[in-house]
């Protein structure tokens, strides 16, 4: 169970003010049941309940993208889990195993504070990149490789000669992950 208090959230517009009763009632305009958000764990209660917050502008409601659910043990713990990959998409590696892949937004500063969702159709080239990343992540997970930005990027580059839907074939998967593993070993050594 987890709680996200109104006081731990950013209001749209980024304004800093005391939350009033109107804010409570208008909360449903910002977030509804079924929305996907990215948040950070503030503290863990003794009964296992978790208290969340979205205090920074990088957290908030997630727009269009693809979710991949993996085992939490495969996500490497790093300083930052938000990565903008050079291939044209961004990825959020949640410690709970939920990986969110989405097209990199053009403008870097979002005044809305993460509450407006961009519902414009995503261009085909971006969608191809996202599908390829999704299949690469599934391949890495099947072969039990740790997930972090470098491993995902190497896997993406190794998969470029193949068609996107072929990555899910067992033989192609093994080949790509073997190449990724080799490059990572070369990086260390």
């Amino acid at each position, binding site marked *: 169970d987890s709680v996200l208090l109104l006081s731990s959230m950013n209001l749209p517009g980024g304004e800093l003010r005391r939350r009033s009763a109107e804010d409570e009632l208008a909360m449903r305009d910002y977030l509804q049941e079924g929305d996907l958000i990215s948040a950070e764990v503030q503290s863990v209660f003794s009964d296992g309940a978790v208290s969340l917050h979205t205090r920074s502008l990088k957290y908030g409601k997630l727009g269009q993208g693809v979710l991949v659910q993996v085992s939490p043990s495969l996500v490497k713990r790093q300083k930052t889990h938000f990565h903008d990959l050079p291939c044209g998409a961004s990825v959020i590696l949640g410690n709970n195993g939920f990986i969110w892949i989405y097209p990199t937004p053009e403008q870097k500063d979002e005044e809305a504070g993460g509450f407006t969702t961009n519902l414009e159709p995503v261009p085909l080239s971006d969608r191809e990149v996202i599908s390829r990343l*999704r299949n690469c992540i*599934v391949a890495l997970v099947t072969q039990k490789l740790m997930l972090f930005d470098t491993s995902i990027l190497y896997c993406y580059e190794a998969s470029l000669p193949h068609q996107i839907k072929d990555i*899910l074939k067992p033989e192609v998967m093994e080949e790509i992950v073997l190449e990724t593993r080799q490059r990572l070993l070369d990086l260390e050594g």
Partner: protein
Amino acid sequence: EDLRVDGRGCEDYRCAEVETDVVSNTSGSARVKLGHTDILVGVKAEMGTPKLEKPDEGYLEFFVDCSANATPEFEGRGGEELGTEIANTLYRVFSSESSVDLKSLCINPREHCWVLYVDVLLLECGGNLFDAISIAVKAALFNTRIPKVRVLEDEEGSKEIELSDDPYDCIRLNVNDVPCIVTLSKIGYRHVVDATLQEEACSLASLLISVTSKGALTSMKKVGKGSLDPESIFEMMETGKRVGKSLHIALQKILDEEESLGTSRQKVGFLG
């Protein structure tokens, strides 16, 4: 623009594994793995009395069991509703006269015939159940070996049925006309074949059509809460026929390959 989340086109199937003869005490069996969907079909041939309205034909009986391993919703009796729905769909698909040669299953008109009990077991639910089940049923029927029997007549006129001594002396079924089900799910304005669980959750309506290898439609069923435009139904039917034909060709190729390997084939079975 023909690109799904996992990179497939709208008419692409996932990677499928088909293996026959996995269960040793059945007359025929097959196991199909389509992505995360896992189906096991066993066919047992038993002697029975022909139905009254069709005295010179045998018949098929379908039974679908949704194992509790598939999803937590199937715990206890949860899977019965889905099981009966699938069984009724299979009866409908095979109700056409030309699907299986039922006359070859007859031993003595009005007295004895072969009844094929087809048991379907859902091991894992990963989207697109009907297609996987129909592929498994076709493969299992292809694999079925029915022992040859001879009817001897005594002097008093009582008939005796004799089983041939040779265990390899059996009749095989002709599965050339057995239809396969193709499920087309409508998502937005387009329709997709072989939907994953996530895609099924997004689609409001689907069309199940059963297609034979020659491209003939034997039955059609619409599932889902949403509505389908009559024009889109035509489009979906055309797509289904096309996809169904190529599915049959691919399946037959694999079955023939497996057959040609003979007894030296390495069986993966369940523990491989």
